């Protein structure tokens, strides 16, 4: 086996990420790659991202028949993906193994506004305490400056996929 350390993925020296870059740092794929763009990232600490809600989203086929409301659980998932981006450099050991980070806890969430087609979700995730490979995040989602969802999530990195 080679003992030469692999160089970290060049994306991890960046502070913004486009959708094409997100496919490199997250294992998710459309239609479940919900995050569109990361406008600011401080690795292992904090990120701001964008999720544009379009009428073409698969969830609107059933949520709801009488009026379109973007599901709160998908806002949580969007925030979890942003938190996953924040931890991805560590979770992938700098990009030398596949990212393996999972949503481990959702706490104290409040949904304080309806999100509808055409809305632009501005997402924020800030890492807090981290122990045993599980990291606490304080997260929020805003539309036009107003908070529509906020709470805490935990992201767990697993040894799965380590080589």
């Amino acid at each position, binding site marked *: 086996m080679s003992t030469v350390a692999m160089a970290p993925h060049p994306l991890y020296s960046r502070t913004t990420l486009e959708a094409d870059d997100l496919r490199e740092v997250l294992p998710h794929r459309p239609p479940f790659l919900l995050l569109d763009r990361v406008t600011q990232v401080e690795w292992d600490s904090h990120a701001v991202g964008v999720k544009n809600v379009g009428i073409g989203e698969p969830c609107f086929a059933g949520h709801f028949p009488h009026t379109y409301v973007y599901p709160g659980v998908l806002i949580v998932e969007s925030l979890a993906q942003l938190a996953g981006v924040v931890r991805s450099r560590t979770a992938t050991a700098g990009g030398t193994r596949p990212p393996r980070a999972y949503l481990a806890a959702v706490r104290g969430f409040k949904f304080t506004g309806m999100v509808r087609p055409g809305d632009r979700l501005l997402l924020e995730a800030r890492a807090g305490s981290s*122990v045993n490979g*599980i990291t606490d995040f304080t997260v929020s989602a805003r539309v036009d400056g107003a908070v529509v969802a906020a709470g805490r999530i935990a992201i*767990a990195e697993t040894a799965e996929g380590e080589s």
Partner: protein
Amino acid sequence: MSAVMTPPIDPAHIRELAAQRRALVDRVKQLLVDRLDTGVEATMIADDESLFGRGLELDSIDTLELVVAVQEEFGVEVTDDDVEALLSVSHLADHIAAGLQRER
């Protein structure tokens, strides 16, 4: 080497230290009950109660919640380097006391 002077034992001081320790351990127990779904009352938790396994049976996500709670309640960090701090209620109280001491 200079001669070591043993300070005179002041019973009132010892009692005060013991009371402070008692109060800290009780706060840690109350924090466990308030912030985690332990299903027990604070008075039912022993000072040397294990946080994991037989004992309070916390899981890894509870551990993170406890670490967050300790940070919020006492302003003391618990990291992966502090594995001993999470062995029992009393170990956690020791870690918090040491953290508070450093702050002074």
